[in-house]
């Protein structure tokens, strides 16, 4: 059963160097994301990935088409949608002077919920940082904390915008495990990424965007079968990341 239905979604922006002309940041895309799947949106910078997510999250006005999440129209009832989604944005700064515990309690209050902050911090492996300030977290810890904040309302759909960009391989693998755990518990997850391995490992289905359009959509296996170039005659075993991880170990460095 589809939990997110997108029909002909369009976003126009004025051209940066000629304000009277406009271009389509998102050009009439249609999506159907199943409940309980991890859905990945791939594409080069400027392809329209973040704009698509921001329209679904209510951050950006929808210029054309419709989007519903769990049957609720995003454009007509944004506040109902906000109640059932969790969002992790690319920028993940918070009020500097509040501790993680205080921030989570604050986010709980924004949803008018009493939350078990310790439980949430435990879920993202940050229990020992409860009293720390966000500025003192490493990149991976910050991303995990962002996800904890996105989980305070126990959302049906979790949006992750480039969750592993800038993380070291250990932190990245750790975050993948977290995403898989959440998905196993039944959460639908929509993520954007530039990391092909991430898309291949995590996502049950992938959409590839370019110039505001979806140019391919399928399971990773089918996409490889249909579009991948012929493999080289004598393939190398593994890749540099395997080498890196074998040499430096899987232990988290945070």
């Amino acid at each position, binding site marked *: 059963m589809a939990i997110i239905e997108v029909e002909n979604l369009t976003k126009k922006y004025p051209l940066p160097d000629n304000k009277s002309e406009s271009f389509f940041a998102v050009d009439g895309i249609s999506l159907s994301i199943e409940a309980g799947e991890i859905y990945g949106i791939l594409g080069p910078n400027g392809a329209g990935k973040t704009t698509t997510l921001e329209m679904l999250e209510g*951050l950006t006005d929808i210029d054309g088409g419709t989007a519903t999440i769990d049957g609720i129209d995003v454009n007509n009832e944004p506040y109902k949608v906000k109640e059932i989604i969790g969002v992790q944005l*690319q920028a993940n700064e*918070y*009020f500097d*002077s509040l501790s993680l515990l*205080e921030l989570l309690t*604050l986010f709980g209050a*924004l*949803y008018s919920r009493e939350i078990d902050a310790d439980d949430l911090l435990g879920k993202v492996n940050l229990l020992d940082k409860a009293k720390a300030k966000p500025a003192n977290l490493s990149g991976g810890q910050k991303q995990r904390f962002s996800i904890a*904040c996105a989980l305070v309302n126990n959302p049906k759909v979790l949006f992750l915008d480039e969750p592993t960009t800038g993380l070291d391989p250990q932190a990245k693998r750790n975050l993948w495990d977290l995403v898989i755990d959440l998905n196993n518990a039944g959460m639908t997850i929509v993520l954007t990424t530039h990391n092909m391995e991430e898309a291949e490992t995590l996502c049950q289905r992938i959409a590839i965007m370019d110039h505001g359009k979806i140019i391919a959509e399928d399971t990773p296996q089918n996409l490889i079968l249909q579009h991948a170039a012929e493999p080289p005659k004598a393939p190398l075993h593994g890749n540099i990341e395997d080498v890196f991880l074998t040499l430096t170990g899987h232990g988290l460095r945070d």
Partner: protein
Amino acid sequence: MPTKLQIHLARVFLKIFLRDRQSIFFSLFFPIIFMTVFAFVNSGQQNAINIGIVNNSSSDTSVEFVQLLIDDPLFSVTIGEEERLRGELVEGDQTMVLVLPDSFSAQSDGTELRLLVDAAQVRQLDLIMPVLQQTLISIEREFRNIEPMFVLAMEDVQARSQRYLDFLLPGLMAFTLMQLAIAGSGFNIVEFRRKGILKRLFVTPIQPRDFISAIVMARMAIVLIQLTVLIAFAVFMLDVRIIGNFASFYLMIILGTFIFLCLGFCLGSIAKTQQAVMAVGNIIIFPQIFLSGVFYPIESMPELIQPIARVLPLSFISTAMREIANNGASLMSIAPTLLGIAVWFVISFVLATRLFVWKEVAN
């Protein structure tokens, strides 16, 4: 009535503001330094006029005359040769030099006393001359045993002396609350936006009115705490007097803070970057420092500027606070000023609600 969420949020913002020790320190530090400096500068007596006397007469009368001048607290007398005193006059050590001729005696009529002055140095000569004339007349009366025809009995209807510091305090408090309020809403919003915090808040179900009321409540609490500390310091340490009703005084503080918080929200909505908010903020703040009668009365400004100066929001606030603090004015007696405050209250509130579009401010 504030909702549970608004109160929770207000407490969070209060916590955030209170943990910003540096800005709290500086917002208290400068007004305290300022008031302290003025308290000491103005605490001294009026400076005595330095007067040099050249006595060319040998009569008893002249000695007596000089003694009377020495006894007068208005003058600080130096007796000496004309040559030397002329030099001191040119140097600026003497304000004037009085030369008594050798014919100086009680019997003579119309004795000419020569007064040497350096007109270029003594700008307040017009003020000093009548004082000197008056002194000469009273000395003359004493010599000739004439009772003055008229005696001026001065009666202070204010029944108290006002120091500059008493005048300054309400204006300085109005100015401080403007600074704190504009920074508290405008500058903070731009900072929150720059960090992407507003965007993050936007994707939660928080309503913009919850966000704004929470900031208003938290900032109001901070302003009231800080001003109370400053006023307590002024009253208890510097002996500044507040004559009027404290409740009215604080009502003006609350209204003023609200107006400037609203203007701050307008500022934060228009200016998208930290640099822009500083620039636009200074456009709002700077003219008001000089034009709103904070440090000196609006009446002392050029006639042309006065009408503009009077309608600035800070003018109304500082005038109201000063009338209450210095003259013990009742709210009824400052009704026109209160009307001005009410008008600004409505203008700033309407502007803020129009300009603060949650989605645009957050993005």
